[in-house]
């Protein structure tokens, strides 16, 4: 659009002067949320270096240390600041590793959802006609069932077909697949709605007159103009995916206890709640809530700022 001259500001400068950054600087809730999210993200990424011990390494665990309370309660061991779980694993370390697994699955599942959903939405919106009717009917049917329900059923069936051992081995990939497949219609509908608005614009006509192929017009011309709603629902979808993963793990259809995510930590701690060891389940629970909450709040803020015409319904 703009011709590159000497006065055109660099990409970084344009970003810094954008409305997005301007409103971010004025919104302390968004700053606070981003800060917490980055802390959790960095903690998760660098878990192998930050965590005091490796919860996957059985040689570092002693059953004698099991169910120690966190520091601020009598009977705690200063070696384990957040206490230990029933197997004697340091809770701080398992939470860092667990957040890592939860975030990997959350981002992975959203990437898969976006891949399927954006492709389907572009095709339905741009090509129209029978393809549109068929794809959107498919999305409607799947959306009329709760996404969580679809995920639970698919997870249960995969587990029944392949058996528990195989399921645990490939749990991360299977969860990405299950949650990705369960929630693609959200993307498809959002993208289709924006494509319908873009399709009749002149630049699309121009591209068509120039003889570009449909695929090029869809991905190179229309897609960049539908990015802001995609961006906004992505944040909400990451929060949803993390919750879905935790729910599946809690039901025993997710990560095994040997390679825990936040959800399976909550599940394994729940058995010890009645005996008074509340920290095993409630501390990972609190981390999960904070993670999902900051992502949701950032999503709210993004929606207000970018104000895309989100597809209602």
């Amino acid at each position, binding site marked *: 659009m703009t011709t590159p001259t000497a006065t055109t500001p660099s990409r970084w400068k344009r970003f810094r002067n954008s409305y997005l950054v301007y409103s971010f600087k004025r919104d302390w809730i968004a700053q606070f949320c981003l800060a917490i999210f980055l802390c959790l993200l960095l903690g998760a990424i660098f878990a192998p270096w930050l965590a005091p011990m490796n919860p996957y390494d059985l040689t570092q665990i002693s059953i004698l240390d099991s169910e120690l309370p966190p520091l601020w309660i009598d009977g705690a061991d200063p070696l384990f600041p957040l206490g230990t779980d029933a197997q004697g694993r340091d809770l701080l370390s398992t939470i860092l590793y667990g957040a890592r697994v939860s975030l990997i699955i959350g981002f992975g599942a959203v990437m898969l959802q976006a891949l399927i959903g954006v492709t389907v939405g572009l095709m339905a919106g741009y090509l129209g006609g029978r393809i549109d009717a068929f794809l959107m009917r498919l999305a409607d*049917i799947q959306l*009329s*069932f*709760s996404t*969580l*329900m679809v995920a*639970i*059923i698919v997870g*249960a*069936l995969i*587990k*029944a*077909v392949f058996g528990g051992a195989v399921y645990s081995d490939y749990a991360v990939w299977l969860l990405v697949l299950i949650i990705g497949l369960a929630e693609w219609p959200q993307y498809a509908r959002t993208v289709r709605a924006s494509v319908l608005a873009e399709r009749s614009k002149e630049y699309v006509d121009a591209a068509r007159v120039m003889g570009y192929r449909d695929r090029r017009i869809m991905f190179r011309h229309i897609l960049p103009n539908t990015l802001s709603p995609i961006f906004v629902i992505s944040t909400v979808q990451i*929060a949803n995916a993390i*919750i879905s993963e*935790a*729910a599946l793990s*809690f*039901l*025993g*259809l997710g990560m095994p206890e040997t390679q825990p995510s936040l959800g399976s930590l*909550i599940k394994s701690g*729940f058995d010890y*709640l*009645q005996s*008074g060891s*509340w920290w095993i*389940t*409630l501390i990972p*629970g609190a981390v*999960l*809530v904070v993670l*999902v*909450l900051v992502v*949701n*709040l950032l999503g*709210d803020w993004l929606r207000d700022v970018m104000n895309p015409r989100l597809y209602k319904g």
Partner: protein
Amino acid sequence: MIAFLIKRLMHAFVVMFVISVISFAIQSNLGDPIQQMVGQSVPESQRAELREELGLNDSFLVQYGRFATNALQGDFGYSYFFNEPTTEVIQRHLPATLELVIAATLIIVVFSVPIGVYCAIRPRSALSRFFMSVSIIGISIPVFLTAIMLIQLFAIGVDFSPFPVDTGWGQWLNGVLSTEGGMPSYGRGNDLTHLFGTWDSNFFSLDGLTYLVLPAVSLASIMLPLFIRLIRAEMLEVLQSEYVKFATAKGISLKRIYFVHALKNTMLPVITVGGVQLGTMVAYTILTETVFQWPGMGLMFLEAIQRSDIPLIVTYLMIVGLIFVVTNTLVDLVYGLINPTVKLTGKPA
């Protein structure tokens, strides 16, 4: 209207057909019924005979035809674990789940409407802001975690005493921060009122209600924030409309405008979303029932998965599919009836 009705029914029929094909594919590909029926010692020739007799060698279509015919007559086969017809197992577990859903719905309706309306009428008041922040926190807490926290607070109890115990105010503050616990958090209790058939109810005794409270609140917690936000958003939109301004200009009392004129049009979209969410709540019963060991369909389904009880899993899928399809179809039809502006033939707007 009749064209719309037929179209919606056809749609529902196609969805049920797809669900039944998927269910049948699961049933015919998972597990070996012969293995389940006879022991290890039965020779291969006899097995083959039995296989032929039961029609397991027929083509997929013939077998599906038989499955569908039986299913339409309410015959879904026998549960491996309970050794009785799966429909009877489901019938035994269905009332518990329905009661949970009914109780949660009551909680949602009673709280979401007044709070949502209040937040729309006074969007800038401190209380509204408080409700809106609580609701976004509520959305971010997974339902099983709400359930666990409720158990910790009201079943186990929290002894939190950061203030000095030897002073009067310290004791009082500690008392405020601590909870006693003692609420039941496991199962449905024994004091159930028999209604009819397999339906025993928790609603008609105080003891039964205490068992119902925590599971119902945690199930409601997932939908309540959504409804509050939805009602608020719709009401805010309605309050901007011309007819509300006109009613104000006419001098009708604010109370009447809010609760008679505006609320009516607010509830239209809320009812449709609500109907669909009722179906969705079935999914969340699986989580709630697992935490509270509530003997309903969700817990039964999860146990059936652990026991690889394929016929029971398949029956559950069909029944839940039916619930979803029926609620969605009903919601569409009701919406078409009460809102004449909806394009009934489903043409794109």
